[in-house]
């Protein structure tokens, strides 16, 4: 889809934190771009750097103790490395919005939800109080809150987990975003509610033509929702490509291992094969491929850091032995 305009571009993003245990390198060189209207899954385990990457795209990381470097970091044409705080304020919740894992923690407990969504509306467009109220009710209706006129006057604790996440989505939509970053939006929710939220996100994406960056640890969700996927391990993207290509034939041993280790409801007799060992700690220094200690195919070559190489149509993997072993 080279004709679609790019909404986000990241080149060689590196983020490190100063911790008591030393410098934690959360992101160790990540590059990707997202074009208008596509749904990209950013997959990884805890500590892989997926959330830090997403927060970097909104410049939401704290200034103190964090070192953020990138050759390029732009969202909707705004260069985040040099943007003023006024530019960032206009971008966040405007052309780019984000929803988080725990909707209860993202909402103010003591304000009516209508007021909170209204704040997002009035932040990004000149609207009178009554226009804003009308827009709030329209947004709540679009995200599937029944009886929005009445419900707008309720407080967050009066809603269920799924409805709270719908309210967060309504707030995110207030600025008509071109990019919506969803950080594990359903991890705190039940499976049936999870299905509802993803159906909603897919509908809205089609309706508004926005791009969605979905951060998750769950490959099954990526298969359901995304068109393209970026797999992260130890602060790097180790495989990327279209969902079709990667699920049909994962070329990085980590991606392949993950897919082999999850049970499936449609395959009762499936034998699951765990990946050995544990993920790398962010404070550890890595020589060569970070997956090497856990990799069944590790060889001498792996002591050097592999880079993402094109390995198939619409697929790239960072593995020295990808061509031999997969």
């Amino acid at each position, binding site marked *: 889809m080279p004709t679609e305009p790019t909404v986000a571009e990241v080149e060689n993003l590196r983020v490190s934190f100063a911790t008591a245990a030393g410098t934690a390198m959360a992101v160790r060189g990540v590059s990707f771009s997202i074009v208008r209207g596509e749904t990209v899954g950013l997959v990884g385990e805890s500590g892989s750097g997926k959330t830090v990457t997403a927060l970097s795209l909104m410049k939401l990381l704290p200034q103190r103790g964090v070192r953020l470097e990138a050759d390029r970091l732009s969202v909707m044409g705004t260069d985040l490395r040099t943007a003023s705080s006024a530019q960032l304020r206009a971008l966040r919740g405007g052309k780019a919005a984000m929803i988080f894992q725990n909707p209860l923690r993202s909402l103010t407990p003591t304000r009516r939800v209508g007021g909170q969504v209204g704040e997002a509306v009035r932040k990004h467009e000149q609207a009178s109080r009554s226009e804003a109220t009308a827009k709030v009710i329209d947004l709540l209706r679009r995200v599937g809150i029944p009886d929005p006129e009445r419900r707008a006057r309720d407080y967050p604790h009066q809603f269920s987990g799924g409805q709270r996440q719908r309210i967060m989505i309504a707030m995110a939509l207030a600025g008509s975003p071109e990019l919506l970053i969803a950080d594990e939006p359903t991890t705190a929710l039940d499976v049936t509610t999870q299905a509802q939220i993803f159906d909603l996100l897919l509908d809205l994406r089609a309706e508004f033509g926005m791009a969605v960056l979905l951060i998750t640890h769950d490959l099954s969700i990526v*298969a359901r929702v995304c068109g393209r996927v970026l797999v992260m391990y130890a602060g790097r993207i180790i495989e990327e490509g279209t969902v079709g290509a990667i699920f049909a034939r994962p070329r990085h041993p980590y991606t392949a291992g993950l897919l082999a280790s999850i049970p499936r409801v449609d395959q*009762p007799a499936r034998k699951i094969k765990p990946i050995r060992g544990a*993920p790398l700690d962010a404070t550890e220094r890595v020589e060569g491929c970070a997956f090497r200690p856990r990799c069944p195919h590790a060889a001498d070559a792996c002591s050097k850091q592999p880079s993402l190489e094109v390995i198939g149509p619409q697929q790239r993997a960072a593995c020295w032995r990808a061509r031999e072993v997969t």
Partner: protein
Amino acid sequence: MTGRNAGLLLSVRELRVHYPGPYRAPWRRGEQAVVRAVDGISLELHDGETLGLVGESGCGKTTTGLGILRLVPSVAGEVVFDGTNVLAARGRELIAFRRRAQIVFQDPYASLHPRKRIDAIVGEPFELHTDLSRSQRRAAVEELLTQVGLQAATADRYSRELSGGQRQRVAIARALALKPRLIVLDEPLSALDVSIRAQILELLGHLQNEFGLTYIFISHDLAVVQAICDSVCIMYLGRIVEHGPTSEIFAAPAHPYTQALLEAAPIPDPEIEARRARISIPGDVPSALNPPSGCAFHPRCRHALPVCTELEPTLKCSGGQSFAACHLLDQTAPAPTKAGVAARP
């Protein structure tokens, strides 16, 4: 009865766990509200089997597990474990039961004491229930740690020094210490990383074979349940809505709620996902404080009939050895007789 039930380890009849609802001032009229967390659950578990308790948050699956182990107050009903009437047991009999039935909790970050060394955590059951000497305890702890795939030297560390997977292994070692027959596993994988879950799952299977353990596996993840459970109970608002052998339930779910859960479970294959019907059930689980009339699932059920709002369905045979509580069973095939329940092996 005893002859036919050979190998029956646990039998639960009409288990109820009711909690008082939100505080109600004494001068307010009406009765104190009651949360019926578990409302009349019956199940049977045979030696060496794994039973899955499945449902969404608030369905009472965890409370059922805790109730069976008598770890919550105000449990009513009957729990018979290997000849022990658990809910009536006192003194030595109760202590003996505690030795034989153990639990592993969901969050190994919360279930291990942060200020105690692993040695003390895994050794505590020995301290309480046996008269092993200090050095014997240490040897037993080291053996347990090796059995769960940790190094013996882990005994000298603190839980904060361990990863999530290692912590869950420690919690499993602690549960294994007194050679129990039953372990309740309360969402033991949910707090773990994806690549670690399969490791723990493999370990649980291996330990079951080695020690002849019986598991109650509490989970909301149907794929995992299918992978390790022999039989499964689907719960909704404190009741079992469907139960039977895992293979039967997954192949032909009879209850609309089970069908909805299976449809909602994502499959890691984009081609299958693209072809799947997307029928998500509307709404949320209602409050156990004020459950809907009749069948508790009727407000969300796409097949709801008038009768569903009035009459609560009972568990009926839905084919093979499976049972479902749904009025639709009466509508379609001729309902099998109730004798099917008694004839269950």
